[in-house]
């Protein structure tokens, strides 16, 4: 994509009166040999794969390390029992985020969005929203193009891999993408979309990638929850008219600077943070033996 800033996309939507997702799609088509119909079909296929991954969750599975598995089911039960403080909607978002993260850790098929470690954030927000509201499937596909456009700019200006930018680059990016997508579904304009994304990303800046034993399990699975819930609160703020005082593109640049300043120990090496707590080290040692 030749766009280098969210601001460029916003300006085009204003000038041409086309929706955000259309601008992203048009740019995609101009740079690839696919037709519009093919690109839309591809995105629909990804959406179906997200739904399948959600439905194929198996609460009996455990990850190879046995650290992860079965927690999504616990939340589902708490919702049924009516004991969730967060209520029904956010409760379902939490459940879906954990389930997807667990499926990933158990080597099941998922959709990286933008990465596998953060694969639960976008489906948790969009699938739950689609289930609870009457939404045309095409609208969800459009929202996924909004998410992808935001992700492309983040990848261009900063990074989307924990190994290069820490967890902020994975869960932070996913949260920003989900926030933009949901802001679109709530009829937010381009400005609202990018500010929802910026508010989401800002709140997760600095998040270290410190997985126990270097595995995409602890704390990755449950960080999908904060990514998803943070997207919801950011959308509510943006739709209420709150704006990020730091412009969205500069928020992304800040993430790059923070990621560059992070020591390697906090970038997916399993050599810092939670990974080197006594328990984290004991788990890693146990796995080696």
């Amino acid at each position: 994509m030749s766009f280098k800033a969210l601001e460029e996309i916003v300006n085009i939507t204003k000038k041409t009166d086309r929706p955000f997702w259309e601008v992203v799609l048009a740019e995609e088509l101009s740079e690839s040999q696919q037709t519009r119909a093919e690109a839309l079909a591809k995105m629909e296929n990804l959406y179906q794969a997200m739904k399948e991954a959600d439905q194929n969750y198996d609460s009996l599975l455990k990850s190879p390390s046995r650290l992860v598995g079965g927690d999504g089911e616990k939340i589902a039960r708490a919702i049924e029992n009516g004991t969730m403080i967060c209520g029904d909607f956010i409760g379902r978002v939490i459940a879906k985020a954990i389930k997807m993260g667990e499926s990933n850790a158990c080597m099941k098929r998922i959709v990286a969005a933008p990465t596998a470690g953060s694969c639960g954030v976008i489906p948790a927000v969009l699938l739950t929203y689609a289930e609870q509201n009457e939404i045309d499937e095409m609208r969800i596909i459009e929202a996924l193009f909004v998410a992808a456009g935001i992700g492309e700019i983040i990848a261009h200006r900063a990074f989307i891999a924990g190994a290069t930018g820490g967890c902020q680059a994975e869960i932070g990016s996913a949260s920003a993408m989900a926030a933009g997508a949901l802001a679109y579904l709530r009829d937010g304009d381009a400005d609202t979309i990018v500010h929802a994304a910026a508010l989401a990303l800002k709140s997760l800046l600095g998040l270290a990638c410190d997985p126990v034993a270097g595995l995409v399990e602890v704390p990755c699975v449950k960080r999908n929850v904060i990514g998803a819930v943070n997207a919801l609160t950011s959308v509510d703020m943006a739709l209420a008219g709150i704006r990020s005082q730091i412009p969205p593109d500069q928020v992304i640049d800040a993430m790059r600077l923070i990621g560059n300043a992070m020591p390697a120990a906090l970038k997916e090496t399993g050599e810092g943070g939670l990974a080197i707590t006594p328990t984290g080290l004991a788990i890693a040692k146990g796995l080696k033996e």
Partner: protein
Amino acid sequence: MNVFDIIGPIMVGPSSSHTAGAVKIGYLSNKLMGEKIRSARIYLHGSFLTTGKGHGTDKAIIAGLLGMKPDDIRIPESFEVAEKAGLAFAFEGIELRDAHPNSVKLNLTGASGRELEIMASSMGGGNIKIFQIDGLDANFGGDLPTLIVHNQDRPGLVTEVTAMLSQKSINIATMQLYRSRRGGDAVMVLECDQEISKASISGLQSLDGIRKVTYLSLEESA
């Protein structure tokens, strides 16, 4: 990066860089070999070495070498599949100078005895970069049909290769030239918008001064 690098790929977990990217490196190596791989020595560097096992990086690379794609649900059992398919493999650790943390060096032997050395990195989100082939630099991601020509460093060979492509109406997307030293070993890496036919590839192979031609076809049957 395009839209579908960001949303997607559909893949078997747990890690887009350590699992899906690793499958893709193996898969592209398989394609570049252009024949069944008989044996593989695999050298893991950096984070691939330290956290690869828990991410199934080893299983992922073998799955790719067997021709599996990142969404293949047989990836967790790739070692068993390799045994049945007659692919012998061994893993070791290595320290590659100035390499991306998720990097690997592969020394492959094909069924006909053809040898191929590949160095590649997994860049995140399932995207990869091949940065060395048979000891010479390269830089491509395997998203386009890619022609790699190893030749003697002398005038005219680039023209011969590009003339052939032009004659077949094949558009060059990117082109890179590297050499070990003046007059020594050189390599050209051409990413193309269209597929190149087998006949054209073998035509290149017979040209004077060309040492080896490797071609990455993205066609399913190739």
